[in-house]
Each structure stands twice: as structure tokens, then as C-alpha cells.
């Protein structure tokens, strides 16, 4: 099977997976205990408004009609309106998703830059004390729950020393005119520092461990000996020849991990009260704001599914040895 048909098959699979996630979500929210319409109409609405909304969602229709309507809305990205703020859910997503991406990407890029470098070094100097410590640090970073590290950081640096803000993305009262102006303000960077570092520390372990084992594999190959025989400098061999070849597994792992990072944004955003999409999802679930919960969940799932797809394609593109069958 050729490359084109692989891509087409993979795209089809992507669509089917998204449909499946949507379907499960449809089923789940109808399993919610209590009034089956309670997930689109809030109890505070007037009778008229309630009926109107029930009708507009097709909730007076039989289940299969509802399901088709739901899929239609999903395909056209209409998730309805929030009970809480009456905003369209798409607006809610547009407000919170960029905040999550800002935090996640900052942490992610920092973590991967540091993690990969440490991984290369610990693979190169295997058996050394440095390698042992790096592995222990990486394992520790991955096992201590991020939200707990976040709490401790907030306690020490926020409550005790007062050098970092306790919550949020910007200080109260600081009004920024535009999104990018806010991003480049000192106040924002001050708020970003702690959550990004805590997350970065957590993310760092994974690329470190993968890079280390990938380096070990590459270092046992013949071309490394050839490089040595040619009399190349150790550092040149390490970064130019070994590390570049060892990078391949990182690329796919990174794409998949980024998906889970966005999906796992729930906890760290809750701890630091970062107004991101994960925290919004939790809040929506807790206050039974089902349209928002559904919409934000779909965004988180779609991010993961899409990045898995990218990882698959990238792998075939970067490694010519991959065959499509």
C-alpha cells in the first residue's frame, strides 16, 4: 500500500475516532442522573425559555433524532450555550484554549530542550554517576504528582516568600487591551513562571528517559565507530552524529505527549487557578454546565486524537525505512 492510501486511511480513522468519542459523550451525558433534559436547560430558566431550548435541541424528539442532531452540531462545531454565562460554548473555548496552549507550550518547549540535552548526555556518559542521578531525577519528576508540587511551590514561594502570585494569569485590575499585549506584559510572565516551571519539571522526565535509551541504541551502531576512526571530536560525534539519529523516537513521543499534556491540563490549571480549558471543564462538570463540559471535553479529546495522527504521519515522513502496509 502506498503512502497516499496510508494517509487517506489514517484520515478516515481520525474521523471515525472523533465520531466514536462524540457518541460516547452523547451517551454519557444522557446517563446523568435526574431529568434527562437537565443537561441543556438550567433550572433557573423560565418555563418558556426552557421549552424553547428543549425544542431547539430537539429534546422533545426520540433518541435517534437527538443523536443525529447531536452529530450535526458536532460536525458544525455548535456546542450550544453555557448555562452559567449564556455565552456560546465556542466563545468559551476560544477564550480559554489559548491560555492553556500558552502555558503548555512554554512548559513543553523548555522541558523538551532540557530533557533532550540531559538525555543525550546521560546516554553518552552511561554508567557514570551523572547518568544515575539524571535517571533518578527523571523518575522522581514523573512520579510526584504535579498538582502537589504546584501546591508546595505556591506555599513556599507564594504564601511564605511572596515572590509569585497565588493564582490566575494576570493581576486583578490590570486591564490589557489585546491578547498579545497581555502575553508580553511583565505581569503575565510573572504569573506564568511558577506553573510553567512546575509543569516543565514534570514533562522533562519523559524525553530524558527516551533520549537516553535511544542514544544507547544508536551508540552501539557501526557508524559511531567510523566517526571515531575518522578522528572526529567527541562532542561532534555526540551531538552531530549520535544525537541526531537518536532523535527520531522523540518526535513521535513528543507529539503524543503534547496531546496528553493539553488533555491533562486539568490539575495544574486548577492548582494555579490558571484560566485554561482544563480548569473550565472541571468547573463546568462541577456546576453541571453540560454544554460547556461537552464542548471543552471534545476539544481536549480532539487535540489528543489530532496529535496522534500527526505523530503517525511524522514518523513515516522522517524515517524512510517505515513501510506502509
Amino acid at each position, binding site marked *: 500500500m502506498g503512502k497516499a492510501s496510508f494517509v487517506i486511511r489514517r484520515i478516515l*480513522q481520525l474521523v471515525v475516532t472523533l465520531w*466514536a468519542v462524540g457518541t460516547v459523550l452523547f451517551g454519557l451525558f444522557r446517563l*446523568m442522573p435526574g431529568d434527562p433534559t437537565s443537561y441543556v436547560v438550567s433550572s433557573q430558566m423560565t418555563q418558556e425559555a426552557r421549552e424553547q431550548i428543549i425544542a431547539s435541541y430537539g429534546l422533545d424528539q426520540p433518541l435517534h433524532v437527538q443523536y443525529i442532531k447531536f452529530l450535526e452540531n458536532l460536525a458544525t462545531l455548535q456546542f450550544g450555550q453555557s448555562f452559567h454565562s449564556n455565552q456560546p460554548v465556542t466563545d468559551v473555548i476560544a477564550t480559554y484554549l489559548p491560555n492553556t496552549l500558552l502555558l503548555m507550550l512554554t512548559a513543553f518547549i523548555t522541558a523538551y530542550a532540557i530533557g533532550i540535552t540531559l538525555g543525550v548526555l546521560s546516554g553518552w556518559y552511561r554508567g557514570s554517576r551523572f547518568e544515575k542521578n539524571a535517571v533518578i531525577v527523571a*523518575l522522581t519528576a514523573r*512520579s510526584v504528582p504535579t498538582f502537589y508540587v504546584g*501546591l508546595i511551590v505556591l506555599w513556599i514561594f507564594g504564601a511564605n516568600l511572596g515572590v509569585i502570585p497565588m493564582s490566575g494569569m494576570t493581576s486583578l485590575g490590570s486591564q490589557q487591551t489585546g491578547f498579545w499585549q497581555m502575553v508580553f506584559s511583565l505581569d503575565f510572565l510573572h504569573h506564568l513562571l511558577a506553573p510553567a516551571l512546575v509543569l516543565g519539571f514534570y514533562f522533562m522526565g519523559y524525553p530524558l528517559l527516551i533520549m537516553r535509551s535511544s542514544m544507547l541504541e544508536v551508540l552501539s551502531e557501526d557508524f559511531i565507530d567510523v566517526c571515531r576512526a575518522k578522528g572526529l571530536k567527541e562532542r561532534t560525534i555526540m551531538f552531530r552524529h549520535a544525537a541526531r539519529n537518536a532523535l527520531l523516537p522523540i518526535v513521535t513521543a513528543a507529539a503524543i505527549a503534547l496531546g496528553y499534556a493539553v*488533555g491533562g491540563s486539568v490539575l495544574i490549571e486548577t492548582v494555579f487557578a490558571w484560566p485554561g480549558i482544563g480548569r473550565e471543564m472541571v468547573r463546568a462538570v462541577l456546576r453541571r454546565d453540560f454544554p460547556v463540559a461537552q464542548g471543552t471535553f471534545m476539544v481536549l479529546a480532539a487535540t489528543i486524537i489530532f496529535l496522534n495522527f500527526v505523530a503517525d504521519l511524522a514518523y513515516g515522513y522522517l524515517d524512510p525505512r517505515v513501510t506502509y502496509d
Partner: protein
Amino acid sequence: MAQEEHSTRSIFADLDDTGSSDEEINKWQRTARLWQETLRDHWGKLTDELSVKLSLLTVAAFVLVAIFAPFIATHQPLQRQYQGDAEIIIDKWAEPSILGADTPYILGTTAEGFDIFSQLVYGTRAALMVGLIAAVFTAGIGTLVGLVAGYYGGKVDDALMRLVDFLYGMPLLPTVIVLVAVLGPNLWNIIFALIILQWRSTARVIRSQALSLRERPFVKAAEVAGAGDWHIISRHLAPNVLPLTFLYGSFGIAWAILAEAGVSFIGLGDPNTVSWGTMLQASRAYSALQFGAWWWFVPPGICIGLLVISGFLIGRGYEEITNPKLQ
């Protein structure tokens, strides 16, 4: 049970089962001995490393605490020790006695008047229960699905692996949160939600292992000898993937404990049981952070960290046995 089956079964059904009940017992003895040898061998290699030894000791200590929780705990974990004047919730917690305060509470009390030390002790039960049950089921289901998919191949494999792909599309914590919100916040639902999602990784790994195992001569030989599918899967494939099952099981313990702590911390924990996650959630809800009541929120986190790190280190030690490349 084996003897009952014996009379109704054709002697050609399975070449291993031709003999009398004597040989049946011998076969079981042989299997048991083989298992014993493998496990002893693994155990020896595993306990070679210091970090693994320490981790095993840590886990053992937690298990003991969980078993003897009623004897170790000084108070009932969910019983108010005292009340404020007229209010139900007191405004200030008792200071811990290890810091020299004149109270009967080792780690003080929470703002609701619960003894923190006892909550910590009973929290061990919740953590271990979630970790062990979730790990056994995720590793078990994952292994079974992986073996079936890898052995049968074709349509069965396709269907099962698409299901796994779909599960990989679900974000872990958000899914557990939604499931728990739908099913109701209690420990069993959290465990159930975790199991539903987490078997995916075990299934994928075991399947690829089974794919290569079924092409090996000993499986072909068993097929030619007339062994049934289930016999091959359970007697020839399963023992060979078992190290991987253990590996994913030990990682599974760690992940499950982390996830339970996270879900409870968010506020969807079981209100009727104490877990380290719910302790952290309560401490946050009452702003223990701002008041500097560190004896409330530091200990549960350390316990989570210790248990999870131990799980990962044991898993890693085991990984080095099963994958000699890493050594």
C-alpha cells in the same frame, strides 16, 4: 474439577491430557514448579538493586499500615474531635503535638475537626485499594485482549485494536472526571473509570508481543499437535508475556494512585472515605496554604509521592530484567 471433565473428554482432544489423574497432578506440579523457579529467579534479580529493595520495603510498610490502620490510628478519621461554640465547622484547627502543642493530635486537626494523623493512616487503605484493584484489572484485561488480538489476528485483531485506538483518544483525567460525575463520586466508580481507560497500553504491548510469539516454532508445534486455541493462549503464550503483564501492573498501581489523588483533589472524591487526595482537597478548600498549616497538606503529598515513586522504581527494575537491552 479436572477429573470431572476427564471422563467426558476425548483422549485425543489434547495430547497433554491423555493420562490418568496422577499425571494430571504431575502436570500441575510441573507447572507450579516452573512458575516458582521463574518467579524466584526474577525476584532475585529484582532485589539485587538497592533502589528496588528500598521501594519494596516502602510498599511493604504502607501495606502494613493499611492492614493495621485501626490499631495505628489514634482517632476515627471522619469523626469531629470537637466543635466550635455554636457552629458546626470550627474556625481554627488544633496545632500538631509533634510541634510541641498541648493537644492529643499528633499532626493536629483539620479545619473541620478531624484528626490529620488518623486520616493519613486510613488514606493508605484507599490508595492501596485503588492502586491494587485498578492495576490487577488493567493488567489482566489488557493481557487477555492483547493475547486474543495477537493470536487470532485478522478481523478480531482489527476490531480490538480500533477499540484501543479509540481509548487512546480519550484524555485520561477529563474522562475519569466525567465518568465519576455521571456515576456518582465514590471510590468504586473512580476505580471503574480508571480500569475502563487504562488497559489500553497493556493491550497494545502484549498484542505486539503475542504477534511475534505465535510465529515461533513451539507455538506451531503445539498447533500441529492439535492443541486448541485457548490451550495455546493460556499455556504457551501467556507465560511468555507474563513479565510484561507484571511490568504494566506495577506501573498501573502508580498511575491509578496518582489519578485517584488528582480526581479527589479536584473535588470528585468519595465524601465517605478518606484518601490522600481528599485530604489535599480539604486543605486547599480551607486555605491551609495561606495559613501555613503545612502539617495538613505536606504529609499526604509525601505519602503519594513515596508510594508512586516506589511503584515506578519497581516497575523499572522489572523492565531491566524483561528487556536486557536496557541493562
